[in-house]
């Protein structure tokens, strides 16, 4: 296989091995369908490969950029698969309150537990925007709260989240030190 192709293949393999679970989780969360979610991830990886030369590490990390591509691809698929007319906005409370699939991936359980400490109103907004691909306007309508409130909860939610995982990280570090 020629050198350039081999290298590209390796790039996609490494990216996949590192990011696939997170990106698939994202696609599935937006699309709620295994087959379509896989298509979305597949298309996204090809896009990532094609646009790799546009990737600017000053603008975002590789994961952030990949996340945005998968999110956009999934939203596009969601729109094209939706029945014509009103968009069904589903807020599946199990998704939001667990924000994860604990039974499927037990190693994420600790993280979920910590995340559940985040107030529900913030968790909900973060979930809708990051993992259901809604715009702020759509979230505002879905939750029947003003747009300004969505923006505020986005901001504060992420700030609170940071405290959560800083604590989580600290806890992990302490746990490791104790061992």
């Amino acid at each position, binding site marked *: 296989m020629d050198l350039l192709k081999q290298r590209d293949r390796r790039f996609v393999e490494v990216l996949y091995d590192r990011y696939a679970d997170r990106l698939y989780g994202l696609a599935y969360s937006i699309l709620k369908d295994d087959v379509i979610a896989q298509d979305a991830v*597949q298309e996204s990886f090809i896009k990532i490969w094609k646009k790799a030369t546009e990737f600017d590490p000053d603008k975002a990390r590789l994961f952030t950029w990949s996340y945005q591509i998968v999110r956009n691809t999934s939203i596009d698929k969601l729109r094209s698969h939706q029945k014509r007319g009103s968009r069904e906005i589903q807020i599946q409370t199990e998704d939001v309150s667990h924000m994860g699939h604990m039974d499927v991936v037990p190693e994420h359980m600790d993280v979920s537990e910590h995340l559940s400490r985040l107030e529900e109103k913030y968790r909900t907004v973060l979930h809708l925007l*990051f993992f259901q691909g809604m715009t702020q306007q759509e979230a505002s309508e879905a939750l029947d709260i003003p747009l300004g409130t969505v923006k505020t909860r986005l901001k504060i939610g992420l700030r609170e989240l940071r405290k959560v995982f800083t604590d989580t990280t600290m806890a992990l570090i302490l746990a490791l030190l104790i061992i």
Partner: protein
Amino acid sequence: MLSADIKGFLESSLLEEYLLGLTNAEETQHVEQMLAKHAEARDAYEKLQDSLEFMAENMAMPAPEGLRQRILNDLQAQRPEAAVVSVRRKTSWMAVAATIAAVVMAGFGLMQYNKAQDLQDAVDLLTAEIEILESTAQGQQVQFASLQNQLDMISDPSTEKFVLRGNDKAPQFEAIAYWNETSKQSYLDIRNLPELPDRKCFQMWADVDGEMISVGVIPETDEPLVALTFLDNAESLNVTIEPEGGSDHPTVTDLVANVVI
């Protein structure tokens, strides 16, 4: 109205929206300007990206069997328009550049190389590069696009390659000049730069219509390729030893390498 006030900016939700990819063109530009100008904005953005990774980790699901292979098959079927390049500024990258140059230059018979080993090195290196690219600690600066440009240029069949080898004055000197008259680009792959006495440097000149014009001082660098000034109608490339910082005119008696182009 998008104010340039950093405090107001950080209090708004613009950065969070930018993270999500929700900002319009004007807002995006504003955010990027603020990020460029203010370390606090960059710091805040790093923290947001940490949060994104944390959330995504939480929402992760095992990717289904078969997806990986399907993606690789799909990749295989794509036309090789985009070659992915990922790099870190370390000497080891030169091994990869050398490999690529070697493949491209195979016809010249200038290098002996073990293709399989070089390929493996290149692959290992690329893996390592991706890991570094991904590492969040300080955000390594990597110039993706410019290296892609360099790679395109040296793989372009219309690019000419000229080897410069040192004469008695600097027998260890070795460099490869990539010269493209269509795209008007030129790069130098510095293979070996012998040590010079203090306050001396190597400088490269192009002979244009009998006049020697500088195309640049050759830096001591780990960069795989160094950009040179392209000059139309150059007839030869020449390297001389000059005082540190370079000269306006070459010290002809200190000519160490020369190649007709």
